[in-house]
């Protein structure tokens, strides 16, 4: 059957406003960067990028508000563009907000720390971040394999360049190359899987696939399995889930610190968004027709999650380089973030998205904050080794305190966002009776105490050989403290966020309804 292609109307541009804003800012800033004479510092472009991100964020917020008004009006709160290849719904919007916020934090932090010797062409960094976020946003709100793929590649390619931005250091180039190859291979796997998905169902529309997948499994299950497992492998590579994680530490170490935290937060989040879009819309949607497929796939996801959590923390045990350590803890956290998706949806447990986004938010905060601290410390100590943190308690007590909060959150100690994020995920796991997974999560948490202990030890129990105080640039300090404060706030009052998410998001409307 031939569907009539719905064309893009002017009216629709309103729904694309955030994306358009970002694109516009990218172009303007690029031109600005060329036009501006050398003597003028490139921080202006940084501030511009920040402005763009905020503007986009405002529009997203506006959309969220619109949608909720529709909901009150009894209208289904989502909008299909290009007959469903692009969806503006709460799922997308919430994630977009997270991405934009995270990027804004990172950019703000980098305004303080990045020096010319780290990123020679600062402007480049700033106006390349925007298209990357744009890609992430597209991934978050696509309803079609093609658009998903475009978003993925937009994000991917720009981040390749960003990783390489630290021209001075050879490792940057090496990291970029490794990232290119891994990323390329990952995309190849994902695409190959997509192609089979399309082949089995005859549609690239997620909704179409969801409708057709049931029969497809009935006809030729093997092909469908092939499709999905290719996808899983591809995403496992992108998310650096164990044992697909080995590239992550290298890339994270080689990349400029702001880029690293961008990869750790936004790129991961976007990949998760894509994973949600595909799996919920197809496998979970087809649950009624075919439980077996879904069970197998989700079991695979659970296993991956478990492996990631354990390998991540275990690997981090012996790391001496702060960025590599955080990279590996990122592996573990990716595993944790994967759990909600992998859990069954039962009468009593349907809050997978709340669990996911809450922990994602907490993770964004602690990660961005931690990397900001790393950047500051690295600046002082001229190295990214843990030893750079030695005696931080004397040299910069407040920064040390903030770092302690962030580390506690990473370790999932109360009362922090990380704690409640983990708590909700655990509760979901227990509700769906996946006790083994809960046990693994807890075990990895306990091991992670050892890991994060190394930060604490350096900061409090070691006298720094250089007792000279660390200078914290205002913007970076601001970010650090925003992150720390927000982390604590999320620990004491998770309610507002969750109420909000619960009010906006609903599996049925955001994914299933056509």
């Amino acid at each position: 059957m031939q569907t009539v292609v719905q064309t893009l109307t002017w009216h629709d541009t309103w729904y694309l406003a955030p994306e358009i804003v970002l694109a516009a800012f990218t172009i303007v800033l690029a031109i600005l960067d060329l036009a501006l004479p050398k003597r003028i510092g490139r921080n202006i472009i940084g501030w511009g990028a920040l402005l763009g991100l905020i503007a986009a964020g405002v529009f997203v917020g506006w959309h969220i508000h619109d949608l909720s008004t529709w909901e009150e009006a009894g209208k289904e709160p989502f909008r299909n563009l290009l007959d469903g290849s692009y969806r503006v719904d709460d799922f997308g919007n919430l994630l977009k907000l997270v991405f934009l916020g995270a990027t804004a934090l990172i950019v703000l932090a980098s305004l303080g720390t990045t020096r010319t010797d780290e990123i020679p062409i600062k402007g480049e960094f700033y106006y390349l971040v925007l298209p990357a976020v744009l890609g992430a946003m597209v991934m978050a709100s696509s309803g079609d394999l093609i658009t998903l793929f475009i978003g993925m590649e937009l994000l991917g390619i720009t981040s390749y360049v960003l990783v390489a931005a630290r021209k001075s250091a050879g490792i940057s180039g090496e990291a970029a190359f490794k990232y290119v190859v891994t990323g390329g291979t990952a995309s190849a796997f994902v695409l190959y899987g997509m192609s089979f998905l399309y082949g089995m169902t005859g549609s690239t529309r997620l909704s179409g696939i969801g409708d057709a997948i049931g029969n497809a499994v009935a006809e030729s299950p093997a092909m469908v399995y092939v499709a999905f497992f290719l996808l899983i492998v591809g995403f496992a590579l992108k998310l650096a889930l164990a044992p697909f994680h080995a590239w992550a530490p290298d890339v994270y170490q080689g990349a400029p610190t702001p880029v690293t935290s961008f990869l750790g937060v936004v790129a991961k989040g976007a990949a998760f968004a894509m994973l949600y879009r595909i799996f919920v819309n197809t496998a979970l949607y087809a649950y009624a027709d075919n439980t077996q497929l879904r069970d197998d796939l989700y079991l695979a996801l659970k296993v991956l999650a478990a492996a990631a959590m354990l390998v991540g923390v275990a690997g981090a045990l012996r790391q001496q380089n702060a960025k590599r350590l955080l990279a590996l803890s990122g592996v573990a956290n990716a595993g944790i973030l994967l759990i909600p998706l992998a859990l069954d949806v039962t009468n009593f447990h349907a809050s997978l998205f709340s669990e996911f986004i809450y922990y994602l938010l907490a993770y964004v905060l602690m990660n961005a904050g931690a990397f900001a601290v790393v950047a500051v410390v690295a600046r002082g100590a001229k190295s990214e080794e843990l030893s750079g943190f030695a005696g931080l308690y004397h040299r910069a007590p407040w920064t040390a305190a903030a770092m302690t909060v962030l580390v506690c959150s990473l370790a999932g100690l109360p009362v922090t966002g990380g704690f409640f994020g983990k708590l909700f995920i655990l509760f979901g796991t227990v509700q769906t009776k996946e006790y083994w997974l809960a046990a693994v999560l807890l075990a990895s948490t306990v091991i992670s105490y050892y890991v994060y202990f190394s930060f604490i030890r350096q900061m409090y129990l070691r006298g720094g050989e250089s007792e000279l105080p660390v200078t914290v640039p205002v913007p970076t300090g601001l970010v650090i403290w925003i992150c720390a404060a927000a982390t604590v706030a999320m620990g004491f009052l998770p309610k507002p966020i969750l109420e909000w998410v619960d009010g906006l998001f609903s599996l049925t409307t955001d994914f299933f309804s056509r």
Partner: protein
Amino acid sequence: MLDDLPILSMIAFLPLVGALVLLLVPQGRARLIRGMALAFTFAPLLAAVALYIAYEPLLGGEAFAEKLTWLSVPLNMEAGLSANGATSYRLLFDYRMGVDGISLPLVLLTGVVASMAALASVQIRKRWKLYYVLFLLLQTGMYGVFLARDLTVFFIFFEMTLIPMFFLIGIWGYFSRENAAKRFLVYNGLGSAVMLLAFLMLIATAGFSIEQTASGAALSFSGSYDVLAANLADPNAAANLNGSMFLSDSLKGAAFALLVVAFGIKLPLFPFHTWMLKVHTEAAPPVVMIHSGILLKMGAYGLLRFGAFLLPDQLRAWAPALAALGVVNIVYGAVLACVQKEFKLMLAYSSISHMGIVLLGIAALNETGFEGAIYQSVSHGLISALLFLIVGTLYERTGTTRIDELGGLASALPFTSGILLTAGLASLGLPGLSGFVGEFLSFLGLFDSYPWLVAVGVLGLLFSAVYVLRGVLGMTYGALPDRFAGLRDVRFVEALPMIALTALIVLLGVYPSLLTDAMAHGFDGALKLLQSAAGR
């Protein structure tokens, strides 16, 4: 007059307030910092005493209970639930505080030991400010654990003791303090992780409650003790929720086993005890006072609280095992204590031995045993606090606490030695001192059901005599080595907490009703449950 102001929260959070205030004081003002820390340590103690005076055993702590919904987090509802007529589906984190005959003595103990430790902290020579901030945070955690009435709140307070303790060990300890701290953190982290799993199991299966509102059934999960107790006690509770919630015995058993491990680590139970040896030897004496004086008691408290009040069947099923383990603890710890050369290690092992007696009391499953367990916890808390106080002063003067390196101190430090001797006698269970009452009650309680185990356990008293005298006499009696000739006895500041603790130990030994009366009726609910459990 007390029941109109939230005294329990005051007790729990005054130290926290103190910590926050302390943060604002400049590092240099050592005296001011110390004074404020003392003030904020004694304040909750006074509050606790006021509570003790106002507490009516017959009425229980109802008058003081506090409850306010801290978080009520929405859980997304699937079509299935709304089909069952549920209109809202939430996860409740209630902030519930309460006091009863079990927690009251321990709260008092916390107050006393913490205050004495604060006084003893004169020995702390570096990083005053951080020390006292952490010290106060730790107190909030400890009070909270004993006062909480909701699993999540309990867990949070429990974890709150973890971090400050970790720093206190790691920064102000002796030579291999980092190792000890790391061990403490990971081992106890493991414990609390296991505990959390058990808690979540309970919440997710037994924590539900349905209230019919005008708009329909409001379904919620919470960890509040009352809800859990109600559901767990009600055999057909599962049916209340169209069967899809399950309270299978196997699950209850698993949860209880997890709890035994979790609190066993704290207690410490025989195979899980090695971590606390390091803490005893490596941490600074005031910190050990807190650790061995209070933190260990959380294990006993948790077992009683969640065993006797929530999972009586399982406690009953486990009682023989617990009793046996208790005896193992007693004898194992005592025998090991007999051969230690390091006094602190000897004390550590004796703690293991004494906590074994607590286990016996719990395993007795009758009021006598339970009260014995709590009494023993309190008295051991006081005694070991006193002992480590002395250890601190001795180490300060002699630079060692090895039994074989010391001797004849009675001629150089008569006062300290006298107190040390008294403490030793108390810890070997001399009647007239607090140690005897707890031990006697525990044995008495258990004897009814397991006379032979008691007969073996009593050996612990014999061994305790052996190692205590070996240690104490070895250090205080005999000829005084010349290098100690110039030692000066304690100053008044140091003597004060010693005298106070000794006085308490004697008081509790001579007039035990002080505590037992407060504990009376504290276990009525649990005993009822246990009876019905026996019935089933």
